[in-house]
């Protein structure tokens, strides 16, 4: 009897890498027990930028939808958190999830508008939409209008399980809150990486790769381009919304200009993805670490730092478009998150 061919996803060391990944995550979970507070705060930043980068990468590197308007969902997530926590009295952690869901729902009419545009015009269209959200939310007087508002202590001091953490680690309220936010951010970041990995391993990932390479070819192979792209756009919006909610829970203060800032939530995110390596899962991880270093050491140089970042973006696009991970991966054949399909013949090693 003939054994059959099968398609296998995964590389030679998948089990080992998965174990290593689990160990890293376990270490990170335990970190607040013995790390300095400043490190915890820095890591919160790293985690949420990583999550934002993974989402942007999924949208641009895989679905081919290059958006310079994702700050719309960061801002929406932030404002939804404030609204749900302050006006609806919801527990902030629950509000984060709900903010994500609502942001995802709002992405539907948004997509209805922006999907009418293609390519670079799609990009600017997403920016316009973000501006519209900003201007509309600036009219919301209850949340501070144009100048914004802060989260009252009754809310920030009563995040769920904060009492439990205080008792367990014997720390002040503010430290306990940071720890909870840290775990929430870690959950978001790790969850995002896992979710992206699983999506790309699935049929949807194959469809995305096909769309990215050639839409007509993908369509002729039976891929519903529109539905696939829409799903990715909505999922990314929901995820970005959750991250936005977390960011503003941590900052505890929101304003339209901050929540919808192109620099913080789009320019930096795109730079992270491009430096690390677009179209790969490993890329944004590397990119966020590089960006964190740059930010820590050079941000004090103000405008010159930004000029450097702009120049970096140009240089990378022209001379190393695949980013650091792209170069490393090609040179050494490394893959940490295997998603390539291989045809396994009967008799081959699995």
């Amino acid at each position: 009897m003939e054994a059959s061919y099968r398609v296998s996803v995964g590389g030679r060391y998948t089990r080992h890498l998965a174990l290593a990944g689990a160990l890293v995550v376990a270490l990170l979970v335990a970190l607040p027990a013995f790390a300095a507070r400043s490190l915890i705060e820095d890591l919160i930043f790293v985690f949420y930028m990583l999550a934002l980068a993974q989402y942007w990468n999924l949208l641009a590197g895989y679905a081919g939808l290059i958006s310079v308007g994702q700050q719309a969902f960061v801002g929406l997530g932030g404002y939804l958190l404030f609204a749900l926590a302050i006006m609806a009295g919801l527990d902030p952690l629950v509000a984060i999830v709900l903010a994500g869901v609502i942001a995802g729902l709002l992405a539907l009419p948004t997509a209805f508008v922006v999907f009418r545009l293609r390519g670079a015009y799609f990009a600017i269209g997403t920016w316009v939409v973000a501006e519209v959200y900003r201007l509309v939310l600036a009219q919301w007087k209850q949340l501070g209008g144009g100048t914004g508002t802060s989260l009252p202590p009754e809310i920030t001091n009563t995040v769920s399980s904060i009492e439990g953490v205080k008792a367990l680690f014997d720390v002040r309220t503010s430290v306990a809150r940071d720890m909870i936010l840290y775990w929430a951010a870690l959950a978001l970041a790790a969850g995002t990486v896992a979710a992206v990995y699983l999506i790309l391993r699935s049929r949807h990932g194959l469809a995305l790769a096909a769309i990215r390479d050639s839409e007509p070819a993908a369509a002729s192979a039976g891929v519903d381009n529109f539905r696939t792209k829409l799903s990715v756009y909505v999922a990314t919006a929901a995820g970005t919304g959750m991250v936005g909610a977390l960011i503003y829970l941590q900052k505890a203060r929101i304003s339209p200009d901050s929540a919808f800032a192109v620099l913080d939530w789009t320019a930096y995110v795109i730079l992270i993805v491009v430096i690390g390596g677009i179209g790969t899962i490993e890329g944004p991880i590397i990119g966020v670490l590089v960006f964190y270093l740059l930010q820590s050491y050079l941000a004090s140089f103000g405008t010159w730092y930004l000029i450097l970042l702009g120049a970096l973006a140009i240089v990378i696009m022209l001379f190393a478009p695949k980013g650091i991970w792209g170069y490393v991966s090609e040179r050494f054949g490394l893959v940490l998150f295997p998603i390539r399909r291989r045809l396994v013949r009967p008799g081959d090693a699995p």
Partner: protein
Amino acid sequence: MTAWLDALLQGIMLGGLYALFAAGLSLIFGIMRLVNLAHGDLIVLAAFVVLVVTTALGLDPFLAALLAAPLLFAFGYALQFILLNRTLGRDILPPLLVTFGLSIIVQNGLLEAFSADSRRLRAGSIETESLSLGGGLAVGVMPLLTLASAVLAILALNFLFYRTSLGRAFRATSDDPETAQLMGIDNKRIFALAMGVAMTVVAVAALYLGMRANFDPTIGPARLIYAFEAVIIGGLGSLWGTLAGGIIIGLAQTIGARIDPEWQILAGHVAFLIVLVLRPRGLFPRAVD
């Protein structure tokens, strides 16, 4: 009633300014399918160049702009030839990111060189003069000049495109860059020339921007958005459409402001979104894409 008519007139004049912003963007996209995210910042850069010329040589802004125009033409040529030509190709990410990076560099470079202070191009008494149209209506001379310049610029560009050998080369390259090479057209130089022409239009836009209101290094992105909206509303490939698009944005903004000053900019965006939903290809699409 007069208030509304006045808003109408103001809106049309403002549309002229937006059409000037948009014409350069439309041209570049038409010829090389490049959307320059730094377009607004380049307008601001041009305004600063004109400012420097007025201060250094003590000239009035119109003459300064005349002197600045060839400089800006050369800048555009060099920018395209040295940098932007390398980004052209099938992939849309490189031109997007490179022009995005360029936008950040220009904004922050201007901040370093000129600080965040607001500036203005002073044209003297002409700034406040107005023409009476009877019935209590009047138009400012400056806005009228802006609209007239926009119309002239579009006439000149159309003449260039449809009546000259260079314009033929632009259109051929836009249609089919590979076959254009077979005609002896050097794509790299054609694109650089096109960017030079676009920067010359940008110089005119910058002149009127600077005379109309205060400007500072950070206002670039908003100009890009208005320009982009005008191009999309008008329809790709049509410069008169771009003028119409600019006027629609201008009208939406002034009428919106009349209802509630805080709604001015939002009204423009809403008008854009409405047109986008109802007529995705714009009002007067021409280009075969």
